[in-house]
């Protein structure tokens, strides 16, 4: 009888993902092409929520920024967080929250309300990282894009649709000598998710609900934690380079065709993002 009790508990139920994501031995590193014209890329992190009536206006201005000639140097990560992002029965049953990572960032940056956006997490006014007033965002984006890059960041994705295994390889090359403590973070985002969005701005859509709202740049999950992993601590010589590989099994609920990976390097002392890169999954 006692042995029966022992045996009864002798089972290991494995929850997805079924692959070991920390082991990248099955992710052969590809060759990276040379970067001939290094440019600074802007990462805009936007806090938003589907029950936030002001948020469609924020997204409208972000689309305006991405439609500019420099739009290819702009990466947006829309982070659905706070109680306004909680799904509920009925029209607002979509859960666009990136697990707990959105809430962690929301708390860390002490976001008072949505929409809020940061521009490489730079304190453009000397004190604030995340800004309200979407109409002012484009000017802030253009201000950041005038800066020179201190590193290049390249990203190559290899995706196996049969297993939904994604190998993401990132190469960092320092264009100048570095003395900062740096971390690198990677996130997966998904475009073209259709659902209900609350709205109070008739110029961007029907009010009070936009039933077929197209959510873009929705942060889904992280690769190496909410705050990334250490890239370097202290001095690094000019022209040094680092290659890192990561693996993730894409959630079957995500449309891999609409997914993309965003990687960025930031200063752990100031939180400022120094460089960012984004590539589609395939």
């Amino acid at each position, binding site marked *: 009888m006692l042995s*029966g009790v022992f045996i009864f508990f*002798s089972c290991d139920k494995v929850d997805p993902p*079924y692959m*070991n994501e920390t082991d990248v031995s099955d992710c052969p590193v590809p060759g990276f092409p040379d970067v001939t014209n290094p440019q600074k890329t802007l990462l805009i992190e936007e806090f938003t929520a589907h029950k936030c009536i002001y948020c469609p206006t924020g997204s409208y201005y972000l689309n305006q920024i991405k439609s500019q000639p420099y739009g290819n140097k702009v990466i947006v990560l829309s982070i659905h967080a706070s109680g306004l992002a909680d799904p509920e029965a009925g029209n607002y049953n979509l859960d666009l929250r990136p697990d707990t990572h959105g809430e962690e960032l929301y708390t860390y940056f002490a976001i008072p309300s949505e929409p809020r956006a940061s521009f490489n997490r730079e304190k453009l006014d000397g004190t604030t990282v995340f800004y309200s007033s979407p109409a002012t965002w484009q000017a802030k984006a253009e201000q950041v894009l005038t800066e020179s890059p201190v590193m290049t960041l390249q990203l190559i994705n290899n995706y196996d649709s049969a297993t939904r295994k994604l190998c993401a390889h990132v190469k960092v090359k320092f264009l100048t000598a570095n003395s900062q403590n740096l971390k690198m973070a990677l996130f997966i985002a998904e475009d073209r998710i259709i659902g209900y969005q609350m709205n109070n701005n008739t110029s961007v859509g029907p009010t009070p609900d936009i039933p077929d709202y197209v959510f873009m740049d929705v942060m889904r999950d992280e690769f190496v934690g909410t705050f990334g992993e250490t890239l370097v601590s202290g001095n690094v010589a000019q022209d040094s380079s680092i290659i890192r590989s990561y693996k993730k099994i894409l959630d079957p609920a995500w449309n891999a065709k609409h997914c993309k990976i965003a990687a960025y390097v930031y200063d752990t002392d100031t939180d400022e993002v120094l460089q960012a890169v984004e590539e589609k999954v395939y």
Partner: protein
Amino acid sequence: MKNRYSFLIIVLIVGILGSIECRAQGVENFFKNSQISGNFQFDGMYYNHDSVIGAPEVPEKVLMNAFANINYNNGPFSAGLRFENYLHALQGFDPRYKGIGIPYRFASFEKCKFGITVGNSYDQFGSGLIYRAWQDANLGYDNSLDGIHVRVTPVTGLTIKGIWGQQRFYFDKGPGIVRGGDAEINFNDLFTRLHEKPFRFGIGGSFVSKYQDAADPVYKLPKNVAAYSGRGTISYKNFMINGEYAHKINDPSAMNNRIYKPGNATLLQLTYTRKGLGMYLAAIRTDNMSYKSDRDADGNDLNINYIPSLAKQTTYCLPAVYTYATQPNGEFGFQAQGIYTFKRKTKLGGKYGTTISLAYSRYNAIDKEKIDAVTPLDSTGTLGYKSDFFSMGKEVYYENLNFEFSKKFSKTFKLIVDYFYILYNSKIIEGHDVSDIYSHTLLADMTFNINEKHSIRSEIQHMYTKQGEGSWAFGLVEYTIAPRWYFSVSDQYNYGNPDSGKRIHYYNIAASYVFCSSRVSLSYGRQRAGIMCVGGVCRYVPAANGLTLSISTSF
């Protein structure tokens, strides 16, 4: 070497117990209660290279399988061993059966409601859907559990069993550990007032878990994989219905392309019997139910469970060409069978009675749906597929319709006539990339008793098919001089092979001599390539040409 030690240990145990017994009861009583029994079988073949049938050159020229069981019994104590010898194994048997050893040995003690076996044991829980350890020498199959086996009957009607050990793997053991328990209650035996009731019922439940270490760099593998089952039996007068449901948790393995979907199996059987009439209905559904103690094993290696076959089995050689092998990864099968004997001295029964039987069985794939829009079916490292329990897949694996007529016309003549229609999905069952095979076989089996000692039995079989190797004809004549001599001549002729160069005769002549409890057989001829199955478990038999000597005896 390890097996030699095992043998010595057994002898030592027997000796020690024997000496204890000797002191307690005296030498005379000890030997008086002792019984030794056993059997021996030898099969050897001299192989001729025969390029016509594709029989390969055999470097050793002669190959052999031999084994001997030796069992000792003394009241509640028994012990035994099996000596096996493969130098080298006959073609068609796994070459890992190589060498000499004692891979099976046990000691058992049964007293005061406890039965304990240490060493190798065979047993099954319920229908075997989650645990069956068994052996068939002709099939080259042996998954005995080496460890402990405990059986307790605390009260009449309640039986509890426990197992814990490792499975036999040729002359070694599998890497996994198998633990399990089973409890069965027969209510009519448990309660005195139900003893004589026509309504009888019982229930049972089993739990098995296997452990295998895992250090896979790519996949998160479960080290402990559990399976459980529940079963019930109800009978009333001539009717009996029984069923069992089994469930297995995620078990990514070489057999299922390393998918993580849980498995399940359901077996339902209904029987009705009365004098002269028997009816049987059964259905089985298995879904990802291969359960082995090594996740990397394939074929018949290290099966913990057993999936029973509902396909009609026959010993006649031509319809047996297309025998169903169960598909543990998924199958939906059913069988309906009826047998009726017309009474003697009636118009249809005649002087000695007439028996007719009709059997139909069919196996389909299970329904499989993709887990999402983009992931292909059975993709490694995923749930593999979704399957609606009550939906049958469209692909037919096997279909068998059999009608049999059996009648003894006189004291000297008996006739059996059989018709088989078989649909055989060779791609699924054998992995051959060929179209489905539809065959029709008609055969007659005639026995002429010349006198009390002399008889002649003859088989005439014809199988018509346009697919596979085409049509076959078979003829056999056996002459028996009871009780010692037996002679036979037979020929299988693949006259309908689409390739005229392969229209080959597979002739065979054989003779046997029986004396005491021994039998010596000698045969010469060709053996066609195919699969040989026992209860849905099959092995491939390659083409061969040569002289075969078989010796079997028991004591």
